[in-house]
């Protein structure tokens, strides 16, 4: 009974992370996107803490802490600040309509389930489901990077993708802590670099719409 409950709860928290991924696709406004991302990171921290509890692996609490402090607080606050500084807190343009994005998202979830379940036939049930969920989150992050034109939302898509990786890492037993810490710091460094790039891009093109860059590169005439 207790086993079933801990399993259900882990499943539920994983699904919350996935739902936050869908909510990211649904949002149009930058502020709402950042808040949703913060919520996703919060759910991720909860997932890591719960896994730490049921796997009796104290180092996962550190992962939960990293997710909570860096991804749920520092990154969203920094991005909010950036958006405010750049004066682009109005709207988000989508390259594809929200409805189509969501439909593709559901197809991706189905795909990752179809892919993960046969491959991991011998793994424990908990790991399999978490892997399916984590892979869906990764794919949704990629989808977000593809469908959005604004540089800030693309970065949020990248971070959401990384959330999915962490979700996969905490649900598999025996992930060394040093890997997670280094991933967390590299994400932070990446965000700093992105921040600098935002300013550079805007200086050059007067916009963060990446369409302009495609034209500039010669991809589009």
């Amino acid at each position, binding site marked *: 009974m207790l086993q079933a409950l801990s399993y259900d*709860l882990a499943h539920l928290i994983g699904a919350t992370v996935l739902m936050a991924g869908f909510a990211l696709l649904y949002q149009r406004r930058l502020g709402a996107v950042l808040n949703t991302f913060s919520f996703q990171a919060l759910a991720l921290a909860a997932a890591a803490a719960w896994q730490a509890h049921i796997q009796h692996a104290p180092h996962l609490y550190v992962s939960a802490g990293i997710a909570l402090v860096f991804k749920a607080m520092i990154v969203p606050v920094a991005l909010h600040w950036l958006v405010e500084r750049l004066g682009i807190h109005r709207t988000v343009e989508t390259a594809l309509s929200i409805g189509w994005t969501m439909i593709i998202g559901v197809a991706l979830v189905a795909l990752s*389930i179809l892919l993960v379940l046969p491959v991991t036939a011998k793994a424990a049930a908990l790991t399999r489901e978490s892997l*399916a969920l984590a892979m869906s989150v990764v794919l949704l992050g990629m989808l977000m990077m593809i469908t959005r034109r604004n540089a800030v939302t693309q970065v949020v898509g990248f971070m959401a993708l990384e959330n999915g990786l962490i979700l996969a890492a905490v649900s598999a037993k025996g992930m060394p802590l040093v890997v997670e810490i280094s991933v967390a710091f590299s994400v932070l460094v990446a965000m700093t670099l992105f921040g600098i790039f935002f300013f550079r891009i805007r200086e050059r093109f007067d916009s963060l719409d990446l369409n302009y860059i495609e034209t500039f590169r010669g991809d589009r005439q």
Partner: protein
Amino acid sequence: MMSDSVLWQMVQIVLALVTAPVLTGYVRWLKARLNGRRGASVLQPYRDLYRLAQKEAVVAHSASWIFRAAPYVVFAAAWLAACLIPTFTTDIFLGPAADLIALVALLAVGRFWLALAGMDVGTAFGGIGASREMLIASLAEPAMLMVTFSLSLVSGTTQPAQIVAFVLGGNVGIEVSLGLALAAMVMVAIAENGRIPIDNPSTHLELTMVHEAMVLEYSGRHLAMIEAAAMVKLTLYMGLIACLFAPWGMAQPGAGWDGIVLGMASFAAKLWVLATALAVFEAGIAKMRVFRYADFLGGALLLGLLATIFLYVSEAV
């Protein structure tokens, strides 16, 4: 026993009708309080219905018999649907007569007649209201069916009473699918009842109204019927959510008086919680643009779809 179930069915038929206005009145009162107004008494909807029923019904020259019949059909469909859902006990006579799919169909009948009546007189508002209502329905109905499917995949039946028995039997743990289905169901309920952010039940602004646009030509007892039908429908959806996702406290067949009293008390408590949540949600959110309905309801449909997909994951493990 047979006679018991008939008795409880009678009680429920009356209960559905009597509680509906006070529930609507409570939502309006709480919303007014949250908006910083004093708000009318929770009994105001009864007075409104009484006043409308006293008044003469004015019918446009161009109206056909459809216009006159529609209020009664709409009301009858809503009332009948409200009688079919277990509220305080699952031991109701008409319970086995209809499952969730029949319920969806019954609600569709009411909606169809309302849209017909909206177009019957031939005014522009009636037409625009009817077309929007159908837009909402075409998305909300499949979402509701997806919810039904995922529930019936979990419990192996589409009968509300048997789903309740299944859940109360402790056969269901914390299921992701049920959470997703609940979210989808709440979104459908918001859309179907014309609440904010889809439609504003108290608006008469031309560009935004949906339900009000269809019933603009009605007056007197016809309007009273339509208003009562809307109130019953709100109660029906709250009862349905409470029945499918939080059936605790509901009396089972063979329960004594204490079980029935407990069932009534828990039903009242659930309605209170849901109505409060609705009022708080409505007070805190702005109405959506018409062009975004598809995104909102498409989201509900996809949540229902995901609920079904996750069920297959759990099956496969």
